[in-house]
Structure formats: C-alpha cells, structure tokens
C-alpha cells in the first residue's frame, strides 16, 4: 500500500486524529527513525494510543522506566480501561541531548508551512519556534536550527555536547516534503518530541500525531 493509500484509507474510515502507533508506522516508512518496539531487555515505555486521546499523559496513558515484563502488564491494564486503543511498548530513549518539535500545518494565507523549535515541555515557549514555507529544502532546515533562541540549545549549553543538527535538519526537510505532497489529505502533522542525540549519533521520534483533512465532500459542505 502506498503512503497515500494508507492516508486515504484512514480518511475513509472516518478518522480525524491518527494516534501515535499508526502515525509512527507510516512515518517509519518514509525514513523517520522511531524507537525499537517490544524490546526483550532494557528500560521501556508503555503507552496506550487512541484517536480520541491524543494528549496521552493527561489521561495517564504513558508509563515510563519499566522492565519489559512490567511494560506488558501496564499495557494490558491500560487496554482494559480504554477499549479500541492500540498498546505500544517501546525502548526508552536515554541518550538525547535535546528535545525538539517538528510540526506542519496548512496556513490560511500561505498554504503548507513547517515549524521547528525546542520540544517537550519547552513547546510552551511558543516564540522560540522557527517557521518556514513547506516544503523546506535541507539548507532551509539548517537555517531554522541556526536562528532564534533555540539555536543555542542545539549548540550545547554550558559544556553539553552539541546535538546532531544534520540529522535534525534532514528530518525537518523530509517531514515538510511529505506534508506538502499530501497536504490535501493531512491538515497537521507533528513529531514532539524528537529525541536528538549528540552530533553524529542521530535521533528518534518519541511521539507523533497526524491530523487528517476532512474528505473532499465534507470540505465543500463546511464552506
């Protein structure tokens, strides 16, 4: 199935918000690194992914720092409480030096845009994000990481290791191209946080969300 077919199927099924587990499966197919699933050892995170609850932690649907067995048990408990969800057990990312947000949306005036800035809890610093037209070339994505107050976080504050900016710029560009090519089907896409490791060590998408556009016939009705 092509990416577009997957998106069209979701849209046809009446989905509006596509939960993390499905969003990550699709993003993985376009080359976005995601955490290893169902690891046999190491520290794990267990999540319950459900289209109706995109903000999982607000509903107690994220459990961190578990052993593989504990994670399975936690997933089973959450599955009982939230029917229709998909349990996700992943390896916890321990080596990140920065958390970033990458988001795309259709702006009413300029069409597809891409945003990148400090992620995780730092998204509350809304002024720190850089915005460009999508698709953004890798060079443009690089400029987003060298401008604004977020730039210093990636350089490494107070002796911290600098983050892998090349990998992050590549991801920003890749997501912006994917979004711009499918902006008729997707109204928003967001990866938050991207766990960025030290220079040369890559990154991983810890959480992701895709918001689908209404179907063409519904769009006509709404205007």
């Amino acid at each position, binding site marked *: 199935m092509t990416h577009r077919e997957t998106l069209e199927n979701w849209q046809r099924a009446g989905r509006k*918000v596509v939960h993390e587990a499905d969003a990550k499966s699709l993003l993985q197919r376009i080359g976005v690194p995601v955490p290893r699933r169902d690891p046999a050892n190491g520290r794990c995170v267990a999540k319950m992914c459900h289209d109706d609850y*995109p903000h999982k932690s607000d509903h107690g649907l994220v459990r961190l720092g578990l052993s593989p067995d504990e994670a399975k048990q936690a997933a089973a408990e959450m599955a009982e409480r939230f029917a229709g969800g998909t349990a996700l057990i992943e390896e916890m990312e321990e080596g990140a030096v920065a958390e970033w*947000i990458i*988001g*795309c*949306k259709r*702006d*009413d*005036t*300029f*069409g597809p*845009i891409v*945003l990148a*800035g400090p992620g995780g809890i730092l*998204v509350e610093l*809304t*002024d720190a*994000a*850089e*915005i*460009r*037209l999508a698709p953004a070339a890798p060079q*443009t994505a690089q400029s987003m990481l060298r401008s604004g107050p977020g730039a210093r976080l990636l350089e490494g504050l107070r002796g911290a290791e600098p983050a892998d900016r090349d990998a992050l710029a590549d991801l920003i560009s890749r997501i912006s191209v994917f979004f711009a090519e499918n902006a008729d089907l997707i109204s*928003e*896409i*967001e990866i*938050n946080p991207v766990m960025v490791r030290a220079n040369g060590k890559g990154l991983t998408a810890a959480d992701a*969300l895709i*918001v689908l556009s209404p179907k063409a016939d519904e769009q006509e009705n709404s205007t």
Partner: protein
Amino acid sequence: MAEPSTNQMAACRPTVAEALDGLFDPRTIAVVGASRTKGKLGQAVLALLKSNGYGGKIIPVNPSGGEIEGLQAGRDLEEIDGPIDVVVLATPVGAALDALETCTRLNVKVVVGVTSGFSEAGDDGHENEERLRKIMQDAPFRLVGPNCEGVVRPASDLQLTFSPMFNGLRPGPVAMISQSGALAGLMALRLGERGVGINAIVSSGNETDLTAAHLLDYFGNDPQTRVVLCYVEELRDGRRFAEAAQRLTRAGKHVVAVKGGRSRAGSRAVQSHTGAMAGDDRVISAVFRETGVIRARESVAAVDAVTALAAGRRPAGNRVCIISVTGGLGVEMTDLAESAGFEVPVLDEATQTALSRYVPFYGSVSNPVDLTGVVLANPTYVGRCLEAVAADPGVDIAIAIITFVPDQQFIEALAEAFDRTDKPILIVWTGSARSNASGEALRERAVPVYDSPARAASGLAALAATTGEVT
C-alpha cells in the same frame, strides 16, 4: 445575440502582463459616470485625468451625452468605435455592473472599478458581488478593484482616481500596491514630499480579479521598478505573493510591506501544538523574513524604509558615521543606530584630521561628530564634513543631522557631498519648516531626508536589508 462560448472568451482574456501594460500606458480611456456635477466620483476622475495632462484619448460616458469637461461624451460604451485600453467605472453600483456587462461584448483590456457596494458592503452587497463574479467568470478583460481608489502612473501623466492625494508625483523607481486607497494616498503624499519617484500606484480594492500577488509579480518583471511598497490586509493568494516576493528580492529589488489587521493565533480548536505555535501573525512575519520582505509596523515606517531604499545605494556593511550640528540629536541617533544593530565606530585618523579643520575645540571629531553652532556662520561646513566622513574606508553609511538652516548654500553643499560618494547618505533635517532654504536640491536627487532620528532609524534598518521588522 448569440453568446460566444466560454472557451472563446477565455482565449481572448488578456494576461496580467498584457492588461497591466495597457493600464499603465493607455491610448484610450473611457470614464463611465463622467459628470458635470461637482462631488460625483466620475466628475472628479475626469477632472483629475484632464488636469494632470494625460495625452491619450479620453471618452466620457454619460447617458445624457453632450460635452463634459470640454470633451464629447458617449451615451453608452457601445457607441465607442475601436479598442478601449481602460474603462473606469465611477457610477453607482447598478450602473457599474451594467457597464461591466457591456464591456464583455467590447474590445476592452482592463476595467478599473472605483465603484463600491460589493462584498465590502456585507449582506447589502451580496447580490452585486454574485453578479460581479458571474460577469468576471469568463470576461475577456481584467479588473482592478472594485471598491478601489484607482491607478496612478506619473510617467504617463495618468491619474485614474477621484482622490487629489496623488497629485504632483515624480516618475521613479517605487511601485505601490495598496488594498486601502486612503493609505495609498497617505504614503504617496509623504513619498512625494520627499522627492521619492513613483513608477505606479495601484489601489487594488476588493481584488476580485487582479490581486496584490499578480501586481507584485508584474512589478518584479518591470525594469523600471526597484522597490515595491505594499499595504495588505488580506492576502488572497498568499503563496503566490510569497513566491513573487522571493523572486524580486533575489533579483536585488526590495519589497516593503505593511500587513494591516494583525491577529493572534486563530481561536478555532487546535489538535496540536503546531496549530497554537504557528499563529497567523507569526507565520506572516516568518514568511516575509524568509522571502526577503521587509515588514513595516505601520504605513509611515514603511514610507521611511522606502525613502532610504529608493535612492538605490546599498551599504557594504553596518558601520555608521553620524555628524550633527548639535550634541543631543547625535546622541539620540547613535542610540537608535546601535540598538538596531549598527556600529558607530571611531573614525580613521586621517578623517579626524580632515574634520578638525572645521570642528572647533569644544566640538568632537570622534563619532558621533559634533560640529557645534560654528556651522551657522559657515554654511558649507556640514557638506564638507559629510564628504570627509563618507570618504572614510571604515564608514558604510553616513548620516548628517541639521536643524534650522540659515542659508541655501548649506543645502547645496549637502547635495554636493551626496553626489561625490556612492555610499548611502541619510539626512535628518528637524527644522525644514523653520529654514531659509529649499530642500529641492535634495529632493531632485532623492536624497533620503527625515524629520527625526527615529524616522531615519527606520530607513537605516531597511538599508541594511535586515529582513526583519521596521519600527
């Protein structure tokens, strides 16, 4: 009458470039609603067109016929033989729509709709808007407006407007696109007062057909336009506007834009942080910055920016020399320049030696240079000092600050200094209204002249092509 097919109609619709070429240099103009009655739009349009010396053919159109403003009037557009480059609609809305419909059967290139009463009138204009859109769907001409203040092009002595705010402009490198006629008038008047030359002004009104983006693209391809000044409230095809702006700025031209109606992030529910973080106003600032558009906070700051850019000189760096006839204004200018990211460096020793011929011991030859009141008795001193600091290899931009001017020689010496350098020069003249001197020598050279350090700072920021906001 047999209706021509839609395909034939679309085939003979002029391109944007063909229509605007015709609009800015028309051979024949028909003014629908031309009138002898003072106070009517059509009377004002015809009178301004005539009094500004337009050399082409003007045909007033009025159902009563006869002679208007000394010209033979037609009773109806259909009485006119041959092609009409421009039809101006200056009647009440019903008659304007009838005339627009008539235009679909004639050989017309472009219609300028001064008439109001469409979408801007809300529910009352709804039916008119529907009819307008239906006519425009396959009209064989292009439309500026409606609900606009018109089109002005000094080089063609062309004033298609009812507003006297655009009188007496010089031809030059600045094009203006404005969704508000009144703001176009305000900006044109101020640019005119400073001697800044205007290529064309289009009040684009409701933009039913031709949009700010179309116009920006056209001016980008126009070799006579170096700077485009835009006032926009709603960008109808923002993507095209952004792409056109990027082409212009990459080609070394400048776009200065005021976006009216700033708003906070949309109140509609958002599913993601992205929605909340990319509010409308932040996106506009970001896209303008990305595409090289200088965003001005308001229209007067935009005029200040354009004034500096229109002179056509680009600085090699950010080092500013300020010479002043008074300490206080020099200090204020220095503060503003530094907080805008400019350096006000110590001058070269040779420059300081040259300056010391003119500056008394109680003045200062460091930067800012304080010439003191000695200039009142020596009217050429400021000009000579400006020349000396502009020649300093460590100076990229020179600013001369003067107050009241006792003598015409004073201004002539400044104009000479401007001619002897290629570096950008800004002049702050706080007392032009209290001076025994004319600024004409400065205006005819389009030397940027400001009435306060803060206004000059807006010009300075634009000069550095800091593609951020100008305040």
